[in-house]
């Protein structure tokens, strides 16, 4: 990390957040969901859409997605980031936006996402078929892996082989996420889930059952980023960005050098370095849990436990409500919301925890949070360390 990045620590803050349509929201398009969450996030920041002069957005289907978003919302941004790294994109958008704010290029950046993945008539099967032409992977597709789940299943098989990680330990991740979801009125699946139910669920791509896999939901989320100075004059308690870093090591799972070590080990290290903090300083953890193996890999790669130990780390409810480390307090992609790309929801939950807005699931004395995004097939990783005013 260049030492110059430390100068950006805490220079910008998230002043507004909102979600809309999480779970099932038939009758809405991607854009309509996005617009509702964007409007609500801008209002939450005490601003109007006319104050927004920066835009970060991405879509899994539209390559030029920023264009229709600009048009639909009536924006005239001086700063635009449409970088598409998969589900980590919105967490990866933070640092470039901080540069843009610091330089004076823009003053209020809207980060937004919306997807009607669950309700849309143009479903996942059609999207997968279209991607084979638009985004070919000629060295994997002929073997008919069920992507993305088979890629994560391959990583899980290797983690189990090398470290003795068990399906029971993977199941404990899903059980903990569901327990948190039970405390979150916004979560899509809230009824209690047992280890036995995860293990007994329909297998999708061994060793992952359907309960090891994220939900398929609708949903939209948006954040507003402004300078730290401006955030202090806005109505909501500012949540400062203390560190942010992104790393990409591969695209295909077959190109991953070590299936048990992700680029989160780099993005996490660099984000912590920028923040001047360490894993022991973190009060609340939001990880991109598209599959149960993700949570284990990221707990290790971000430094919450040694490599190979995460299976044992999560046993006995350690990451569930009342456990030693609160992880995915909204219920995560496994039980709360997962409309194609989850990253912005990890970010929003971290902000809500640091604001103290989380009701029953609120973590007491939460001052520092990490929100970690993943994209592709364990391909892109983005880590953000967030803090309250006390941590500046």
């Amino acid at each position, binding site marked *: 990390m260049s030492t110059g990045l430390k100068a950006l620590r805490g220079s910008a803050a998230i002043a507004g957040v909102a979600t809309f349509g999480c779970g099932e929201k038939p009758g809405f398009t991607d854009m309509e969901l996005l617009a509702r969450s964007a409007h609500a996030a801008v209002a939450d920041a005490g601003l109007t859409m006319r104050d927004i002069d920066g835009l970060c957005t991405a879509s899994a289907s539209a390559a030029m997605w920023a264009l229709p978003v600009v048009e639909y919302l009536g924006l005239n941004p001086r700063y635009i980031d449409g970088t598409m790294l998969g589900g980590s994109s919105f967490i990866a958008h933070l640092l470039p936006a901080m540069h843009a704010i610091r330089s004076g290029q823009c003053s209020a950046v809207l980060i937004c996402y919306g997807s009607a993945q669950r309700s849309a008539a143009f479903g996942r099967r059609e999207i997968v078929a279209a991607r084979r032409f638009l985004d070919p992977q*000629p060295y994997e597709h002929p*073997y*008919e892996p069920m992507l993305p789940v*088979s890629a994560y299943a391959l990583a899980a098989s290797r983690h189990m*082989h090398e470290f003795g990680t068990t399906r029971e330990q993977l199941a404990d991740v899903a059980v903990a996420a569901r327990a948190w979801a039970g405390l979150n009125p916004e979560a899509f699946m809230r009824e209690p889930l047992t280890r036995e139910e995860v293990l007994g669920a329909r*297998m999708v791509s*061994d060793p992952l059952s359907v309960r090891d896999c994220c939900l398929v939901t609708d949903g939209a989320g948006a954040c507003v980023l402004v300078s730290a100075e401006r955030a202090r004059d806005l109505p909501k308690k500012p949540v400062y960005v203390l560190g942010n870093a992104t790393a990409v090591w591969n695209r295909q799972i*077959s190109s991953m050098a070590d299936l048990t070590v992700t680029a989160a080990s780099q993005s996490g290290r660099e984000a912590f370095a920028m923040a001047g903090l360490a894993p022991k300083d973190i009060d609340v953890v939001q990880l991109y849990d598209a599959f149960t193996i993700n949570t284990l890999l990221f707990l290790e790669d971000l430094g919450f436990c040694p490599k190979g130990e995460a299976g044992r780390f999560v046993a006995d409810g350690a990451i569930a409500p009342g456990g030693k480390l609160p992880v995915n307090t909204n219920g995560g992609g496994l039980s709360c919301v997962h409309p194609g790309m989850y990253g912005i929801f990890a970010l929003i939950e971290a902000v809500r925890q640091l604001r103290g807005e989380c009701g029953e699931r609120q973590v007491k004395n939460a001052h520092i949070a990490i929100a970690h995004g993943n994209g592709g097939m364990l391909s892109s990783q983005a880590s953000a360390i967030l803090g309250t005013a006390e941590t500046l």
Partner: protein
Amino acid sequence: MQTTSDGVTGVQAFHQGELDAGRLLVQRCGECSRHVYYPRETCPHCGSTALEWTAPSGLGSVHAVTTVRRKPADGGDLNVSLVDLDEGVRLMSRVDNLAPEAVRIGQRVKARVQVKDGRGLVLFDAIDGAAA
């Protein structure tokens, strides 16, 4: 055997043409000596363009494994493996002569090119008695 493509096509078309003729070739970098798979125009290790085609031994080991669960109407359960060739490259493929759930990490395997409807595909067979 060592061969070089003539540069008339990109490496993907050349490689597929060889597969369609029943031959598996991988690249080896003339600068850093590392093998490269899948085929590329430049070496991902050192950036060199001095990539040469070489026939691998075809021997390797299963590095990671999954069984894709499918309905019988969709073709039934399917093995998908990541295989490490002894030359030091990894590829996605399928172990074809075992039941999907019988494929284990560490299983020694040998490559075979299946040509179906004129299209070549790299598959692997488990080597008898050499299971991990």
